[in-house]
């Protein structure tokens, strides 16, 4: 057992309101610079939708992540030692700026300085790259709330193995059914970006598992951009270096929450430590597709197990980190209550960002029906759209989970490698908590029904209470259990603090300007 600590996250999608506050907080701190305007280390996507960069999930286009070979080993899909060096002069799988969007601003000064005419002055959009007027074709979140439009929702990559009828059912719901998917770097256990970097500039920090790009070693070979299946490594076209989310490591080293998480209005984000067994990384990453998630869950160790604690201490993991791992909200969501899932585990990077799937918007079913045989319908709970009956008056809630909302298959494509059973289990858990809480607070549901619901998903009453508490009441200290770096070691982490006095103190004292 080779125990390592990993900073990991849970995003509770049921609570995400899509306000982009996280995105703005991140942008203001890290990427509000020339060459980085188009980068969104944190972004929020509307699902179903195509995301940013457009269709990033489609590895037929972008060739990101790992794939399993016939011999049961894994290899990088679009990069790697031979392929990476062969493609170094021109990387055929590199997304270009238009796949993201051309960054732009407006000539606001024209509004003030325009001579007096009969027409209103306008502020023309100009490109932030060339400085010339452009026609804006795409923005960072232009699919926001537009899941109904054919341009975005219907081109969602995750619709791939849904039947036309299932897709049709989804878009009958399109007026109301969509949810938000906030994304940051997953700080993977088997990061494809690290593996693809010819310079060896990208590394995973041993102490907390944060994946970083060493800016003074990066040579702009841009293989990480291709290799990251989540498209969370970006190429700064101005400095000629790649950049990525750094989990606000200057903040977490001092025990503070990252900016995106601290600013989260819906309080959907949780950050904590997980302990994992580094000996099993390769085995987990190369497991068969159906076992991927189960095996990934196995790699995380129980921080209360004396054996694990002993091995962790032998590996130099600080007591404060072990303690934080024991109190980790992530461990509870992922391992104890088993309610959170990684996004697209099939990319085989073993990501450390988990999502509690959304149980929204309204419980409803959609059935294809003949209108003519309809008797009197309740005008509020049922209505027709063409030949589709949209029904929100349901008794059997669990039955509906399988039939309605988004097809389970769609959710499974995102979060459970297509495993609909696993997905159903998570959604049922979410529903069981609601039934339990309704029994507790409103009282119109019987205790038997509540008990039955919890029993069916193997949750005890304490579990349910804990889940409810962490989901809706948890204060800052419960949502973020961050072991600060040790001061006595931290002093040495980057360099002598005396040397970096007056600088950003991040082990990087040069002005980041473009080379000749």
């Amino acid at each position, binding site marked *: 057992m080779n125990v390592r600590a990993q900073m990991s996250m849970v995003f509770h999608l049921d609570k995400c309101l899509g306000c982009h506050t996280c995105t703005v907080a991140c942008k203001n701190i890290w990427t509000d610079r020339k060459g980085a305007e188009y980068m969104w280390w944190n972004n929020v996507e509307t699902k179903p939708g195509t995301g940013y960069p457009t269709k990033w999930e489609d590895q037929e286009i972008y060739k990101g992540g790992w794939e399993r070979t016939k011999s049961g080993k894994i290899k990088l899909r679009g990069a790697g*030692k031979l392929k*990476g*060096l062969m493609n*170094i*002069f*021109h*990387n*055929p799988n*590199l*997304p*270009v*700026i238009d796949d993201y969007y051309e960054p732009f601003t407006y000539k606001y000064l024209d509004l003030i300085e325009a001579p007096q005419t009969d027409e209103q002055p306008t502020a023309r959009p100009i490109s932030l*790259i*060339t400085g*010339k007027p452009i026609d804006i074709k795409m923005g960072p979140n232009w699919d926001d709330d537009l899941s109904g439009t054919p341009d975005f929702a219907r081109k969602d990559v995750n619709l791939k193995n849904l039947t036309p009828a299932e897709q049709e059912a989804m878009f009958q719901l399109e007026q109301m059914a969509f949810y938000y998917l906030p994304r940051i770097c997953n700080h993977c256990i*088997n*990061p494809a970006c*690290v*593996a693809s*970097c*010819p*310079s*060896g500039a*990208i*590394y*995973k*920090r*041993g*102490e907390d598992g944060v994946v970083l790009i060493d*800016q*003074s*070693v*990066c*040579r*702009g*070979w*841009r293989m990480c*951009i291709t290799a990251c299946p989540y498209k969370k490594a970006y*190429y700064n*076209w*101005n*400095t*000629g*270096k790649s950049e990525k989310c750094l989990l606000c490591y200057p903040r977490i080293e001092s025990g503070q929450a990252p900016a995106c998480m601290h600013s989260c209005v819906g309080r959907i984000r949780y950050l904590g430590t997980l302990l994992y067994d580094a000996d099993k990384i390769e085995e987990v990453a190369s497991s068969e597709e159906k076992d991927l998630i189960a095996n990934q869950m196995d790699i995380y160790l129980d921080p209360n197990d004396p054996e694990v604690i002993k091995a962790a*201490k*032998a*590996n*130099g*993991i600080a007591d404060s980190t072990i303690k934080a791992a024991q109190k980790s909200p992530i461990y509870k969501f992922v391992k104890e209550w088993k309610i959170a899932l990684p996004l697209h585990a099939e990319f085989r990077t073993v990501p450390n960002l988990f999502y509690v799937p959304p149980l929204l918007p309204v419980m409803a079913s959609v059935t294809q029906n003949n209108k003519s045989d309809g008797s009197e319908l309740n005008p509020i709970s049922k209505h027709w759209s063409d030949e589709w009956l949209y029904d929100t008056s349901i008794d059997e809630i669990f039955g509906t989970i399988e039939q309605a909302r988004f097809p389970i298959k769609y959710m499974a494509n995102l979060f459970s490698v297509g495993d609909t059973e696993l997905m159903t289990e998570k959604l049922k858990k979410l529903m069981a908590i609601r039934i339990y809480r309704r029994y507790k607070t409103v009282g119109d549901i019987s205790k038997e029904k509540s008990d039955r619901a919890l029993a069916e998903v193997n949750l005890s009453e304490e579990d349910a209470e804990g889940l409810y508490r962490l989901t809706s009441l948890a204060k800052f200290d419960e949502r973020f259990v961050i072991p600060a770096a040790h001061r006595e*070691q931290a002093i*040495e*982490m980057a360099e002598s603090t005396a040397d970096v006095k007056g600088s950003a103190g991040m082990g*990087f004292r*040069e*002005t*980041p*300007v*473009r*080379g*000749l």
Partner: protein
Amino acid sequence: MNLLLFGALPYMALALFIAGTIYRYKTGFKYSSLSSQLLETDRLFSASLAFHIGIITIFLGHLVGFLAPSLFIPIGGSSLVIIEIIGIMFGVLALIGMVLLFYRRVTNDRVKTVTNKMDIVIEILLMIQFVIGIFIAIDMHWGSQWYLSNMVPYLHSIFLFQPDISGISVMKPLAQVHVVIAFLIIGLIPFTRLVHFLVAPFHYILRPFQVVRWYWNPKTINDINRQWQDVKRPKNN
């Protein structure tokens, strides 16, 4: 004049190259391939590929002759013709690539914004050098032989710090210009984007895929029996 161009210039260029490269490397942030592929990819494909394959082959050809001339001296007859033809082909390939790259650089608005003066200078110099090189190869036959008999001894003498310019002084002016420009380019390397070839990532082949960096060796950091000063920052991985 000859002494200045062939005796002094090489040393100036080499000194500039070494000092400049060290300085540039120490200020590591500016070391990059400065790829513009994110901004424009379609036109880059053929141009970049042609240029890189061409120039690397030509460079290796010159380098092998310089390092191991004895290997090539016995070559004669039809093999010589083949070497000449291959040389000209790759030279033309490099030239085509360079012209396409230059054209892309000055015509594409996005690429233009990430172009600086040194890019233009070095690309023009390279184009001139390619043209002269191709012209020499066509005009002055059996270059792979006289390169070995006249140029290589001269280059060796430079690197042995006993400059002997007799060999080069008798060459045609075109070949002399080729040498002068070559040293100019060498001197300019640290001040241009060409530095990226010095950090070509061959070490990637032998590296394990995953890189983990520790601030301290995790096995010894918490060991109470060890003296603090024994705890060394580990080699990474």
